[in-house]
């Protein structure tokens, strides 16, 4: 049997997903909307940021919110030379793990610098707040070198 040329067609799966937050994620995202970073004290006393509703190791419910600053330290990073659709910037940027001052864990976000040579583990960064904020992780537009301001 001779095989006809294989067919293909675009398939787009798109939906505006709704996600209820519950009280803890809601508190963290409310904080971002109000330009405040909030962490959570874990079962072992360490401060987890972003705030989580359960301990990452034991699953125990957590309730003690802690206000933190909007500055922190890069604990790991990578360079995105060809950003993908939906990522924080259409121009090259860094993804990084940022340990907010006062927290014992790190959060993932973008760092806006011109090129990879400006990135280093241990560098100090500060949140750049989005102008329009609605209670999303992207209310932090990105982090930027602390000295940039």
């Amino acid at each position: 049997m001779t095989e006809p040329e294989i067919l293909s067609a675009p398939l787009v799966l798109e939906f505006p997903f709704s996600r209820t937050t519950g009280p803890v994620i809601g508190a963290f995202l409310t904080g971002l909307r109000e330009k405040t970073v909030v962490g959570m004290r874990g079962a072992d006393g360490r401060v987890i940021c972003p705030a989580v509703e359960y301990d990452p190791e034991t699953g125990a419910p957590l309730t003690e919110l802690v206000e933190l600053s909007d500055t922190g330290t890069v604990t790991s990073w990578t360079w995105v030379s060809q950003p993908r659709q939906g990522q924080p910037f259409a121009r090259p940027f860094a993804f990084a793990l940022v340990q907010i001052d006062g927290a014992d864990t790190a959060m993932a976000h973008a760092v806006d610098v011109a090129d990879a040579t400006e990135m280093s583990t241990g560098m100090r960064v500060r949140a750049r707040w989005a102008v329009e904020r609605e209670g999303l992780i992207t209310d932090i537009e990105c982090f930027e070198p602390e000295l940039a301001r």
Partner: protein
Amino acid sequence: MARNERVAVVGVGQTKYAATRGDVSLPGLLREAVFRALDDAGMAMGDIDAVVLGKAPDFFEGLMMPEPYLADALGAVGKPLLRVHTAGSVGGSTAIVAAGLVEARVHRRVLTVGWQMQSCSEAMWALSLPMPFQQQLVAGAGGYFAPFIRAYMQRSEAPDDIGILVALKDRRNALKNPYAHLHEPDISYDSIKESLMLWDPIRYAETCPSSDGAIAMVLTDEAGGDAAARPPAWVHGMAFRSEPVMAVGRDEVSPLAGRQCAADVYAQAGITDPREQLDVVEMYVPFSWYEPMWLENLGFAEVGDGWKLTEKGVTALDGDLPVNPSGGVLSSNPIGASGMIRFGEAALQVRGQAGEHQVDGARLALGHAYGGGAQFFAMWVVGADKP
């Protein structure tokens, strides 16, 4: 070979089912069921050896294989974590996989969770994703199943209103189940009859809702069942069966896989006359007419006679074979949980823990789930006594 380990259900926890559970996060929804099941079992997260999760398609929540994400929330860190997906039957299949871990003596205490958070998207989208080269004709699950219901009506010559009777019974039963999604105190025969005919012969009020919800169960070995604070339910038999979705000779009205699955489970449980021996049934009825259809498929009635049991009130809460005292899928339908809710409600009945919808003296119960194009089946029989 040594006898397999006996499996006991020592804890059942359910969330309140609702169209949108606006008060909890997605992991919080599962945790509500998990902590309630652990409380029921008198256990803590640390007592659990392994976790088995089940739910239907990932597109519902827009999350790809979210189990690693949920590990922390379920206290599963450092433990085995499995994710089962067998379409609508998944809640039942998941419980069976979890029970298998105990039965095979791989683990002693297993937590199993079925869940779906349908408010993240819409069932009509997630269940009928647009496909290139196709014509969109089916319009959701109702459009898929309605022709088979029509074929059943024709074959059995059942009166047109049997579906209405099922919906009325299940929705009224749901009033006695505080966890149920739909609580409609004013529902009546006429209100169902007058509801919109969506997929003729299926009316709106004969259709399952779209729910957020989770159910969790704690399963243990025999020693765990013996030591349980509250009476356990003992697993007497369990099985799943699958057949192709489209095959020449397949009977979509009474699928062979369903008949064979039931026969297997009954044989394991020593049931020769299900109508006499089983005290209560929780069966997967997402559209009202599936009650009489499954009554035949599961051997409770001769072919063509299932509707007579419904019509005579045999399947009512005070009948001699109550079906879906919880209100069933017609009253609560977080798809990935719905099968496990049937299994869990069967366990609650034989434990005497079903609350206001308790069937007096229930000792042996069937939990039933189906999925796909009525091609995947999962069932278990649980009893108050050890097998």
